[in-house]
């Protein structure tokens, strides 16, 4: 028997004024699957991501999670549904401490609604498990490197038991070594049966780890293919818009 996909999106449309940023994209993603969402700049990847993460509501189309139709109208909705987004630039607030960032929007509270600071210190242990050892929960995150910041955001998604993690260009502006760290962390999601949509314009970053690829061009889906059935060359051509030409 065919199991229900974790998420199914059908005929998603998004307009910004007269620009048709996402044009009738449909896709599914299964549990523990890593989906590479690729396309050139302006292909509609970010717009699709913004719809899934609740930043913008789609103008048309439906989203189902485990067979149930859902309405995602705000980032808070998306988080409540188990969709966690790891943004490249916006992952953390620089001027705040590690613990305050880690629990942002989901702060644990104890008696009379006061923050449970002991619980908030646990983020240190969570990060240690994924190989990021920081000695104080009060550490200012502006002192962390790009890769470490991604690590914190990824640890946060794991800790809060996300079902689906959206990674927005996670490898951009990282050193080569740090890219490998982040890719290792993404594989940990897979082991934990968490689904990942990995958004990038750089096929090299995602080819090794992805199970399937979705290629967008001018807001439309031009390819939806298992890794076993394709090759780097074919995908590159699709991204360059040379497919079916």
């Amino acid at each position: 028997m065919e199991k229900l996909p974790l998420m199914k999106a059908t005929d998603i449309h998004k307009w910004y004024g007269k620009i048709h940023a996402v044009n009738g994209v449909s896709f599914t993603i299964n549990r523990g699957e890593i989906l590479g969402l690729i396309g050139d700049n302006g292909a509609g990847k970010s717009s699709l991501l913004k719809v899934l993460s609740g930043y913008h509501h789609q103008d048309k189309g439906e989203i189902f999670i485990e067979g149930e139709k859902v309405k995602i109208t705000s980032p808070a909705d998306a988080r409540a549904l188990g969709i966690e987004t790891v943004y490249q630039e916006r992952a953390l607030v620089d001027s705040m401490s590690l613990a305050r960032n880690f629990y942002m929007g989901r702060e644990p509270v104890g008696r009379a609604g006061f923050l449970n600071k002991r619980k908030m210190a646990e983020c240190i242990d969570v990060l240690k498990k994924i190989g990021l050892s920081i000695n104080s929960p009060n550490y200012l995150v502006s002192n962390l490197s790009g890769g470490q910041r991604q690590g914190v955001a990824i640890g946060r998604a794991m800790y809060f038991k996300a079902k689906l993690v959206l990674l927005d260009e996670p490898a951009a502006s990282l050193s080569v070594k740090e890219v490998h760290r982040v890719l290792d962390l993404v594989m940990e999601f897979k082991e934990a049966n968490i689904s990942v949509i990995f958004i990038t314009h750089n096929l090299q970053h995602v080819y090794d780890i992805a199970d399937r690829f979705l290629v967008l061009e001018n807001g439309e889906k031009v390819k939806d293919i298992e890794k076993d059935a394709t090759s780097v060359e074919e995908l590159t051509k699709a991204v360059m818009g040379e497919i079916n030409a």
Partner: protein
Amino acid sequence: MNKQNSQEIVNIKNKNVFSRIGAVREIIIFGLVVALFIVFFFTTKGIMFSQEALKIIFVAVSELGLVAIGITMLIISGEFDLSVGSISAMGALVAAKLYQLGLNPFLALVIALIVGIVLGGFNGFITVKFNVPSFIVTLATMIGYRGLIYVITEGIPIGFRVVDTHPAFRKFLTGELGVIPVPFIWLVIATIILILILNFRRFGNHVYAVGGNKETARAMGINTDKIKIICFMTLGMLSALVGVMRVSRVRSFHSLQGEGIALLAIAAAVIGGTLLKGGVGTILGAVLGTLVIILIEYGLIMSGVGAYMYNLVLGAVIIVVVILNNVIEQRRK
């Protein structure tokens, strides 16, 4: 930070003393306050430490401080309010007018506070819903609210002699508890409440997040508009409270009441280490900043240097402190 070959473990050591002692700014400003006390003790030949003088100073500290802590929370959230002087005057006017019409002053105070919340909320609503910089919005309402006051009063002062009819009210707002002026007790209470909210409540975490990086805060599911509007409303309420305090202390409402308080409150916030870009600042810093401003004002007057020196000295102090804050910020990184 150590960059050894760290395939698995990234070990971060906190070597920098500036990032370890989070309260370094407060300590420096506290030192400045102590220094001012010592200097003025000698230049005023001890007058400044007479009970009468201290009372006057602490009433002034309380009135400016209540606005300064409110404006600090708003600046941390990434916004700005120039209209607090006008809101404060509007609160005073509402209380005085209602009292003149025969309303119980306690009830008049409650209504004045609600008016403060509404006017602050209007600033916030226009700012977040129409995406106009709060500097512009509150510049307009600073002028507009004050204009409304002139329209209502036509410039004629309104008496507020609660001391004759309701001595309990005056005691409650501007009396003395033993040797301590009641306004100072209000400042202490409000300071403790805001410190608890900003440091130990979810809302406080969201205020810092919204001011630090609005887009990140939104992505983390925080309703950024709501947070900002609540900060505007809190400031509006505190401003109105100060307005009513002042009118019951001086016993008469004048249309110019509260003019100039916004810039002084912002100065207190800045001296206390609040960054105008948002996301960074403390309530305790704002109280200390208020102390610095008031001590300079009264210290110079009581030293016989003359009131004209005050603005010059204050301006210089603000510049020095801000440069110092920048140095600390650089060292932190």
